[in-house]
């Protein structure tokens, strides 16, 4: 939202600035007119983004902070901190944290094995390709794949039952744990894709230098490896969190009705499946989501900048 106003600010200041220097009169105005014309070139894009992205956000904000009768109110926001809405945010955050840390650690080990492990050379390109596919294989089909695998009659469930291990009813794919396990299917490849460049930046020379100075494996990681990797690692995990937090299709197909996550709740409010006294709740829930994901993206950008320092 600020970006467009920022953009138009620049237009304004430019128009204001140009008459000021009187000395070089003949050339400056022409240049400024050309500058103003240059701005015309980006008008379609800004108009498009304003209509399809900024306008919805503005409408959402207005509805969040006004009551149905009009007038400013905070009741829509305060409702988020109570009862089932609070529970939905907690459940959403839980799944996101578990799948971000689970997928993050798993991805880190796999990426490290592919980048620095002494495996066959074709592993890394194959892994990258597969990660590109797997991170795009999400939503409804992914949910079905996991139901076919670990659902009550899933292939693995049946196989384990034959081996005498009954995972049901202790575990179900429709629980928070099952949901997190499913999320990891798109979290893991995303983590591998994001963290691989940071791992490639971890130079062999540093390890050799540390070893020559008598450092143990643990000392190397504690004093060299981890400090270098940490910003990138934290940034990637934060991004995974936001990624899981905004997921809608996968949890909807997997646990429709079973688990109340924020996106699911918004969906059922929007499609009128639930009757609530306050019609603005969908807006305030969406606003809450934007705030949380906004914070994660901002944190990711900051951490990424910090991580880039070592990667030149």
């Amino acid at each position, binding site marked *: 939202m600020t*970006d467009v106003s*920022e*953009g138009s600010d*620049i237009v304004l200041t430019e128009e204001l600035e140009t008459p000021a220097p009187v000395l070089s009169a003949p050339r400056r105005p022409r240049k400024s007119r050309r500058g103003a014309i*240059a701005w015309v*070139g*980006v008008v379609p*894009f800004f108009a498009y*983004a304003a209509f*399809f*992205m900024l*306008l*919805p*956000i*503005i*409408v*959402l904000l207005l509805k969040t902070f006004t009551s149905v009768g009009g007038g400013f109110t905070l009741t829509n926001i305060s409702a988020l901190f109570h009862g089932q809405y609070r529970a939905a945010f907690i459940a959403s955050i839980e799944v996101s944290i578990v799948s971000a840390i689970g997928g993050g650690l*798993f991805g880190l080990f*796999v990426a*490290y*094995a592919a980048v620095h*492990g*002494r*495996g066959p050379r074709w592993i890394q390109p194959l892994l990258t*390709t597969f990660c590109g596919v797997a*991170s*795009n*294989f*999400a*939503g*409804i*089909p992914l949910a*079905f*794949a996991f*139901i*076919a*695998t670990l659902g009550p009659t899933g*292939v*693995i469930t049946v196989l384990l039952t034959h081996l005498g291990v009954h995972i049901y009813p202790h575990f179900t794919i429709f629980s928070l744990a099952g949901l997190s396990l499913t999320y990891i*299917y*798109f979290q*893991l*490849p*995303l983590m591998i*894709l994001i963290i691989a460049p940071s791992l490639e930046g971890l130079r062999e020379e540093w390890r050799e230098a540390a070893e020559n100075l008598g450092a143990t494996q643990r000392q190397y990681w504690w004093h060299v490896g981890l400090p270098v990797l940490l910003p990138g690692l934290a940034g990637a995990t934060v991004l995974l969190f936001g990624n899981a*937090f*905004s*997921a*809608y299709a996968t949890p*909807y*197909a997997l646990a429709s009705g079973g688990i109340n996550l924020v996106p699911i709740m*918004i*969906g059922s409010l*929007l499609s009128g499946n639930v009757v609530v006294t306050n019609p603005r709740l*969908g807006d305030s829930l*969406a606003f809450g*989501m*934007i705030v949380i*994901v906004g914070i994660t*993206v901002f944190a990711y950008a900051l951490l990424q900048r910090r991580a880039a320092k070592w990667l030149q």
Partner: protein
Amino acid sequence: MGVPSTRTAQMAAMTTVGDDKPKKVRKRHKMRFWTYFWLIMAALYFLVPLYSTLQFSLETGQHAYGFKWYLQIFRDPMFRTTFLFSLRLAVETVIIGLALMVPTVYWVHLRLPRVRPVMDLISILPFVVPPVALVVGLSGVFNLMPWLLANSQILAFIYVILALPFTYRSLDAGMRAINVKTLTEAAQSVGAPGWKTLLFVILPNMRTAMLGAAFLTLAIVMGEYTISSLLLFNTFAVYIYYIGNTEAQPAAALAIISFALTWGTMMCLFFLAKTRGRASSGPTAAVGR
């Protein structure tokens, strides 16, 4: 006296070397073990659900396998309508997105480089606004302008926003790889007007970046469920969900078909990136979740 001391020193040195070797070898073995351990874990995690779904989709009875469910899906007229609908939306999204973004990114690179940070910021906004939240805002807008929802084409316009981060990044990287300014000046010095420069000089050089953006957009649109289902349009993903609610095995077959589709699209993308160098290397994770 001096001789034995050097000898012990030598021997000491030799023993340390001798001691060191098995240690290093053991370390290397341990390293190799963990490398394979994690790679195999990842392979299992990736492939077991796919294998299970495949088996489930091929099962036609007790220990009988066949393509029965696939044939049933392919014969379903709903499959054809929804698939073609999503495909049409994808093509429209690609056309609108490229028509909007190619001239904009070109113009920004050529004339307004200082706007680039603003463009970067705007193009990352769709990540900040989850699709569910975007639908809430959009339905607020549609309440004010209900005529916008009358035509299903509106979905393509919304999908352009979903694909914006990928389209912008791909095009931005592509423009950075070619020297826009020099090419434009060269074209102008032989008298080409602006639109001709864009069409006949810049576009051919941007083919890889544009195709990359197009394939990612295709993958996103073909799997998009959130927005289309909440705005009540029957896209391919909505159809998959509907089948899943009614019949489990055809749904598994559809999941496999949809995976094959994603695989094919991504393969085109990687093949493209490989043959044309890294000009269009962009992020490859989409928004279907």
